[in-house]
């Protein structure tokens, strides 16, 4: 799949949100097709698809990826529930601008203070996207209990009255301790977020090994914060180098973009920017490939521009 199709007519992505309806889980054959903006992607795999977004190393962009892919899925017409599985450090609500609307968390649901549907925060603009937080900061959760709780949650979401969601995205905390174990428990597939630096790659490799030990085989990679100018100048590893080290199929390549910081400050996901940012377009592409269970077939490498004119001879 060629990622060059990003810079074209982003307005065609405005699909109407699908009305949630009760439907039995279905199995679809994997679809391999070129990325095309003039049609809706076809959902592949069993629904609901439970995807954990993890990395190992902190600060590589897991929460940003979860927020933007979740909203992209909602824009494409699929129902999605994002679960912030970080017990103690909650951030996903900030990126989505929903921090003032989180009244109940999973801890309250377990204690019987509220029902599950009361703890789900529905986005006002995209009604088919919901957020669920595990706990409030400084609250305690029994560690051996967290994995079971998430399994019950996913099961309850599958059996709810308005029908199961198409996607359940779990934002995994950093590290490989109890929080990580809790988050990966109900997942069937994983998205590994990494940056093209050696420390992140080492942690990502370890996390991939743990995921495979735990039985998760469908693991795809997103390379975040890519600087094509540094890759051209041989100061940063290329995306192909990263893939050579980890041996994972590519779900997306996200360029470094200052709009990420601004969107975090505003509480407005990057994919909703008008005009679209490069990183936002890349996230949309990644969401597209996630829906169709596809991976990238080629990446773009920056080259020297053609020298034109007499004065370019002087190295200007």
């Amino acid at each position, binding site marked *: 799949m060629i990622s*060059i*199709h990003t810079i074209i007519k982003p307005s065609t992505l405005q699909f109407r949100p699908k009305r949630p309806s009760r439907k039995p889980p279905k199995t679809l054959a994997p679809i391999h097709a070129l990325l095309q903006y003039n049609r809706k992607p076809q959902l592949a795999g069993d629904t609901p698809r439970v995807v954990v977004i993890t990395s190992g190393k902190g600060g590589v962009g897991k929460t940003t990826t979860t927020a933007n892919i979740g909203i992209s899925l909602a824009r494409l017409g699929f129902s999605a529930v994002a679960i912030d599985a970080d017990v103690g450090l909650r951030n996903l609500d900030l990126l989505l601008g929903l921090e003032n609307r989180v009244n109940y968390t999973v801890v309250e649901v377990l204690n019987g*203070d509220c029902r599950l549907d009361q703890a789900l925060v529905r986005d006002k603009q995209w009604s088919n996207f919901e957020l669920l937080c595990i706990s409030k900061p400084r609250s305690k959760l029994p560690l051996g209990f967290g994995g079971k*709780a998430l399994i019950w949650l996913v099961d309850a979401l599958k059996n709810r009255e308005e029908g199961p969601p198409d996607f359940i995205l779990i934002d995994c905390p950093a590290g490989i301790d109890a929080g990580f174990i809790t988050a990966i428990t109900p997942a069937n597939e994983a998205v590994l977020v990494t940056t093209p630096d050696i420390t992140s790659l080492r942690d990502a490799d370890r996390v991939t090994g743990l995921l495979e030990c735990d039985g998760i085989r469908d693991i795809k990679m997103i390379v975040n914060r890519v600087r094509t100018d540094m890759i051209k100048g041989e100061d940063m590893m290329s995306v192909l180098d990263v893939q050579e080290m980890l041996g994972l199929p590519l779900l997306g390549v996200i360029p470094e973009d200052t709009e990420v910081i601004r969107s975090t400050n505003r509480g407005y996901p990057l994919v909703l920017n008008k005009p679209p940012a490069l990183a936002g377009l890349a996230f949309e592409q990644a969401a597209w490939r996630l829906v169709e269970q596809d991976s990238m077939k080629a*990446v773009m490498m920056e080259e020297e521009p053609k020298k034109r004119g007499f004065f370019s001879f002087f190295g200007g």
Partner: protein
Amino acid sequence: MASIAAVPVRSPSFLPLRNFRNGLQFWPELGLDCTCKYSNGRVTYRKFVVKAMESDVDSGLRNDAVVIKSSEKDYAERQQKLHQNIVAKLHESVGSLPVFAFPIGKLSGMNFTIGLCIVATMLVVVVKGYAAKGSSDRRPGSVADLVRRGQLRSDRRGISTPLKYEDPFNNPMVKVSKSNSTVEMCGKVYRLAPVTLTDELQTVHQKRRSRAYQWKRPTVFLKEGDPIPSDVDPDTVRWIPANHPFATTASDIDEGLAQTNVYQKHGVPFRIQAEHEALQRKLEALQNDQKLGKLVIDPASARDFERPLKSHMKSENQVEHNISTPKSGSSASPSDHPSGNKPLPEELQNP
């Protein structure tokens, strides 16, 4: 005939315009015609017709005509005189051109300077290119360091062939080169490099990780210092520090109850319901206690429990006092009191 070589003009395009303008002032006296074509502010000479003439043009032509008609002897003499005149005039003209001597010297100095600049520029470009090539290997922190450390294999890099790209959307921001191998976008040029990961490579990586990372999912969480139960695999134990701020090993939640809470779809949540019921019970109990406190004792039965008093008056007063104490919430008026029609004292009527 004046020779053009007497006025050397080697590189007319590099000479400043003002010198030619000064020189042009003298061209009409020499009888030199020149047609100048100006291009880009520079003077380029296309035609240069030089012919030497006497100062009086008409008389020169007439003299020539007379020489032809005279005898040959006179012709030879006149030819000599003509040549002498021409040479004399040429000397005069050259002598009257002091300005040209200055620009000629200046022109050679300018050429030297310009040539020197060009050579220096070429040297700078060559040195810059060499430095750029060398610095990528010598600069610390580049990808070459990763190759040296053995983190990256150098033999696999840069072997992919560019893909052909078709742009069906006719996006003016995306310019595809003629060979379809590069794309210009947002002011930068990109090349499409195909992904080189195959299924075999993926399997190799999976096998490597399975050998490197042996991990069992922890199922038992213990505080640091607790003994491991005998029937528990040590590899499945996760040790939690006692002062961990966000974790606890103590499970205060009943698992069955928690599961029920998660699956609840309708109605009031369990804890809210339980609290509400507890509050209800408490309120009822409180109300019952208050009712008991306001009960009136039957005088007939109360006498059985009375102590014998010393004075008769005291006993009568006590009985009256007991009788006159009203029940709580009772609407009985003193006039309806069954003991009699005796009016009660005011302080006894009021509760």
